[in-house]
């Protein structure tokens, strides 16, 4: 999300500290992990905003289109196989799309929990996941990577 290891570490430390200081405000309406993810997400957004990056562009509505093809040639030439290519393309997804992918596939969170963390509806979370997959699929097809699967 921050695309910078030092920023990510700083945000993670601050998130732990915020969680520690805000433990009294945790009302057990959601799972602790969801609450903590939300704090981490908001802290990362604060770090992004403080770096004056184009956060508005990144956090735009899911109705906005994103185009991965602009990064395609460079990443394709740099990748040794389909998996590497896929992972690099995930990094080029808009922040919220990449986050949904990461939370869903790496952290095994349910779509409902992801929607709570990101503060968006369940339907929108699902739409984001599907759109991300669809876009990645089109790129794989373009390079005939699907043959490596089965």
């Amino acid at each position: 999300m921050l695309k910078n290891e030092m920023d990510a570490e700083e945000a993670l430390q601050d998130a732990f500290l915020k969680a520690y200081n805000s433990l009294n405000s945790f009302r057990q309406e959601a799972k602790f992990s969801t609450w903590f993810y939300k704090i981490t997400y908001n802290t990362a957004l604060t770090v992004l905003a403080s770096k004056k990056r184009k956060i508005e562009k990144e956090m735009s509505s899911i109705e906005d289109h994103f185009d991965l093809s602009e990064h395609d040639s460079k990443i394709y030439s740099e990748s040794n196989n389909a998996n590497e290519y896929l992972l690099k393309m995930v990094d080029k997804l808009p922040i919220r799309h990449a986050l949904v992918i990461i939370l869903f596939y790496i952290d095994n969170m349910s779509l409902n929990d992801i929607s709570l963390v990101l503060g968006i509806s369940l339907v929108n979370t699902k739409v984001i996941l599907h759109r991300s997959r669809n876009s990645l699929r089109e790129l794989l097809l373009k390079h005939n990577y699907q043959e490596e699967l089965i």
Partner: protein
Amino acid sequence: MKKLTNDLMNGYIDNELNQSEIDLVNKIITENPDQLKQLKAHQFVDQGLKKLDVDKAPSNLTQIVMEKISNSISVKNQKPYFLYGVLSVFGIGILSSIIYLALLIPSDKTESLHSRPLFDKVSLFFGNVSSSMNMVFESSNVITIGLALTFVLIIGFLFMLSYQKQVVEKLNSFGH
């Protein structure tokens, strides 16, 4: 010829389709190799994403976080000694003034103070303090000293505000 929609493909890999929809998907991919290719690519995305690597947090993260938390607690528990100092000085000053003024009571009234009931003694004491204060404040030197003390008080108050602001900023810097 029917095509696989995005919804069908996403539903297929998420196991959200009912039997008739699964049959439909199977029929389409059997009849149309291009659609099979599409579905394979979709499955590849799903399986590839499951292999995403997790960036490990640095090994000393726990230590760093605990240090930050400890610092935050020590800042929170830090007493405003400057404020206490200023308040103590002025408190002692005011108490000393009252005691001094009480000692200025004229001797004939002091004698009667010992022989009267407690209520009268108290009334007499505060009456004496009041009259002594009037006497004292008639002097221009006392007014000058009072003004100087007020000035010092205001400066002390400004220092106190500045100190408090610094503490709040420090706390906020840990929180963000």
